[in-house]
């Protein structure tokens, strides 16, 4: 996408201005969104993002700039502006650019550039979701469904001789149902996604997806208000993994660790979790939503064991994180687009499977909460304080799942909750989500089997 000669000239210019490192990130990003509402096409929109980000490093200081203009003069102007405060005599020279071919692990047969799949076919798929959702009950008052497809082409050059390109195809289906009984309204939502083309929908039955979101909305329509206070909680698999993502994952990114703005910054090798907990961040799983061939600094990604039997074994490390902390890079440098400098970020993060069935875990609780499906959440890495909401939850009474609940929120600290996960189930499952942080919003998967947290503060109205 960018002429190699121009890239070399910009890198040479940056080093001539005294930079220790120069990186050029080029991105062209096509996207198409299609949505239905009121059982007909609601919106179809598409677009092309294009831009170039230039990163200079002086010592451990990061300078970053970007532009939509791919001309050499503009790139030199940005480089000059960035280096203006730090200009010094050149210390090093650039290594000649050496093109590296990426091993494609996440093939997409029907990506956005493949026109074999017609828009009409995609519309019909979404209408099946709508039909199935509405068929569940007359109380379903509205259904929306959407499809997002993206094709991200990136090209990275750097002063260490790296020249690499990659193509990433993403597909995601969204389904939302609203139930109404005259006085109350509630919603159900699901949004599976993959690093794949349209063929990924072969694994997502639209009828089942429509039924599932409607059932979720209907269950909540007659739910009781959630009780408030400290109690044991079982968080089921799949999107339940957002508890680990928010409570602990962000605090293991060197973005926080390097600033000592993480409760785990000095805990490497220590027992930070119950011995039942082992956790992984893996960018290599074929076609998973959070997978990547290479990270946004051009490094092949990898599987990283974060916690083993409760002990902290690794952080998530990008280039700057490695420079500032001394830990080895883990292929975790990620960014939303050329508008962001890369930072250490999660990929597919999950708690590994344990030994218990869901029933065995539930049976240990006399009075608590079962969170079947989690919603979104947030965390402050510096203090580890997190919050996340339960999208579908039930009261547990005398070892059995009882009435549905609404409005449940779980809060605590990452360090605290890790110590209180005492049982881990067998039913590991992953789910797709978007993760927002300093380098923007990126696709990540969360996951876990069912886990039992012995005590956590539950927020509710009752």
């Amino acid at each position: 996408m960018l002429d190699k000669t121009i890239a070399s000239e910009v890198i040479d210019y940056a080093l001539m201005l005294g930079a220790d490192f120069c990186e050029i990130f080029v991105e062209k990003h096509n996207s198409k969104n299609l949505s239905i509402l009121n059982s007909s096409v609601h919106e179809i929109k598409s677009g092309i993002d294009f831009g170039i980000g230039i990163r200079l490093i002086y010592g451990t200081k990061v300078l970053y700039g970007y532009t939509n203009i791919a001309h050499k003069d503009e790139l030199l102007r940005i480089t000059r502006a960035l280096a203006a405060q730090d200009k010094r005599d050149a210390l090093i020279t650039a290594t000649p650019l050496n093109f590296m071919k990426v091993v494609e692990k996440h093939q997409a047969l029907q990506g956005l550039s493949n026109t074999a799949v017609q828009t009409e076919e995609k519309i019909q798929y979404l209408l099946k979701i709508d039909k199935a959702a509405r068929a569940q009950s007359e109380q379903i008052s509205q259904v929306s469904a959407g499809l997002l497809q993206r094709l991200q082409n990136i090209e990275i050059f750097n002063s260490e001789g790296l020249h690499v390109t990659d193509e990433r195809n993403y597909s995601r289906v969204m389904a939302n149902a609203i139930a109404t009984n005259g006085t109350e309204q509630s919603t159900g939502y699901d949004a599976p996604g993959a690093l794949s083309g349209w063929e990924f929908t072969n694994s997502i039955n639209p009828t089942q997806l429509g039924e599932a979101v409607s059932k979720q909305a209907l269950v909540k329509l007659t739910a009781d208000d959630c009780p408030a206070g400290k109690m044991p909680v079982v968080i089921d698999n799949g999107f339940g993994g957002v508890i680990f993502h928010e409570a602990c994952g962000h605090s293991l990114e060197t973005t926080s660790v390097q600033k000592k703005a993480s409760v785990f910054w000095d805990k490497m090798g220590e027992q930070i979790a119950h011995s039942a907990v082992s956790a992984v961040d893996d960018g290599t799983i074929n076609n998973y939503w959070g997978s990547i061939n290479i990270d946004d600094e051009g490094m092949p990604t990898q599987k990283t064991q974060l916690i083993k039997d409760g002990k902290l074994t690794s952080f998530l490390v990008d280039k700057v994180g490695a420079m500032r902390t001394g830990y080895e890079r883990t292929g975790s440098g990620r960014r939303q687009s050329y508008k962001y400098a890369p930072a250490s970020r999660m990929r597919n993060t999950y708690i590994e499977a344990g030994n218990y069935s869901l029933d065995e875990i539930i049976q240990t609780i006399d009075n608590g909460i079962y969170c079947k499906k989690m919603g979104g959440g947030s965390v402050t890495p510096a203090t580890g304080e997190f919050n996340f909401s339960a999208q579908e939850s039930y009261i547990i009474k005398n070892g059995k799942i009882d009435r549905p609940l609404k409005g449940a929120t779980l809060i605590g600290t990452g360090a605290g909750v890790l110590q209180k996960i005492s049982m881990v189930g067998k039913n590991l499952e992953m789910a797709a989500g978007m993760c927002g942080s300093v380098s923007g919003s990126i696709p990540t998967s969360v996951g876990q089997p069912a886990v039992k947290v012995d005590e956590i503060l539950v927020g509710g109205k009752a």
Partner: protein
Amino acid sequence: MEMSQLENIIEVALKSGADQADIVVDSGESLQVKAEDQKISSYEVSSTNIVGLRVIKDGKVGSSYCETTDPETIQILVDQALENAKYSKVEELEKIEVLRSETLDGTKSFNYDESRARPEELIEIALKLESELMKKDKSLKTPPYNGVGEYIDERLYLNHLGTKCVERSKAYSCYTTALVDTGDKQSMHVQSSVVRKFDQIDYQSCIENSYLHANGLLLGEPIKTGKYDIVFSPDKLAQFFSVFGAVFSAKAAINGMNPFKDKLSTQVATPMLSITDAPLLEKGFSYSIFDGEGNIMSDTELIKNGELKNFYHNSYTAKKLGHDNNFNATRGPKSTLGVGGTNKMIASVEKDDSSFEKGRYFEIISDQGMYSGADYISGNFSFAASGYLVEDGVRISPVKGVTVSGNFYEALKEISNIGSEVHANTSATFFSPKIRFKGLTVAGN
């Protein structure tokens, strides 16, 4: 971006078969500086330019966007919009119809001037945000997040009828984060400030307020589970109303996704509550003279004495619901025609705040998960909060580790008092006296 380039895109769209076309453009330049350990840790410069095209052909609407405007990309932009229109349903009510011969220029001396900050001046402030904060207390760690930036934005609108609108604005923002760590306890608070001129940057108040609350909340403890009156800080109050902002959307009402869709002219809140949207408020940072369809904007009364008066409308939603258009169309380059608001103003009720302060309430300073813990359809919310227990206007103890839960629609009716002095949130888009919400559930000890 040159108007002639954009007029060319409209021309290409019409030649390619569009019956109607319009364009929105968002351009921007920025310079942002961050400090760490008394050195500049990050220095970012940017320039961006996004063009969004909408076409209407045979009554069907299609849209697309791009970030470069070379001839090849322009043709792709036009072709994609027309291709998208093919699969849309016929929508007779969506039309591009604003016709004005004079260019509408919303750039004013109070929101834009040609002067620019020198990088050295921004660097000096970034370093002070760190060093002057650190002088306050030995328990403070290097602030994990701080920075200062200059932002210049330009919005353009033009359509096939020849209507052109332009508006430029400039802003400076700074923020810092006090992180207090005593070994066994940590507390953090971020404070930001936004102004329009460089010499107005108030980094001292960022330092003072970030430290005030990080330190003040360090020893916070959960309070006993029960019902408490709640008063939000200006930032948190703005956020609370924003979470449920779709209640004012005519588009959401048409789509069956607005719980207030049948509530026009009915009492939805306490008679004390009056809310107005004020796009031309000079001190408001959502100042805007034209909407996403090129119409001239003016105030919109949303709630008057507790009664729902208006939804936000564009030309399509107004026709669809048979209401007057109040010119609140929104449209970014990457989004289709929508509706939305600008600056919100809530009217005062009390003559002074003395009666408002009587008794005990929980003052919320920070939250976690207010967005993720809310369901705007049902109105149920539950989020983690920190702040102070207040007795007769005096903060008597810090509070941490609690959740606040309730129902927004019930809470609007259960407001027990609204104060006198109007406070702005830090982004200067929400202006309100203090509001006291009666008896929400707090889960703590």
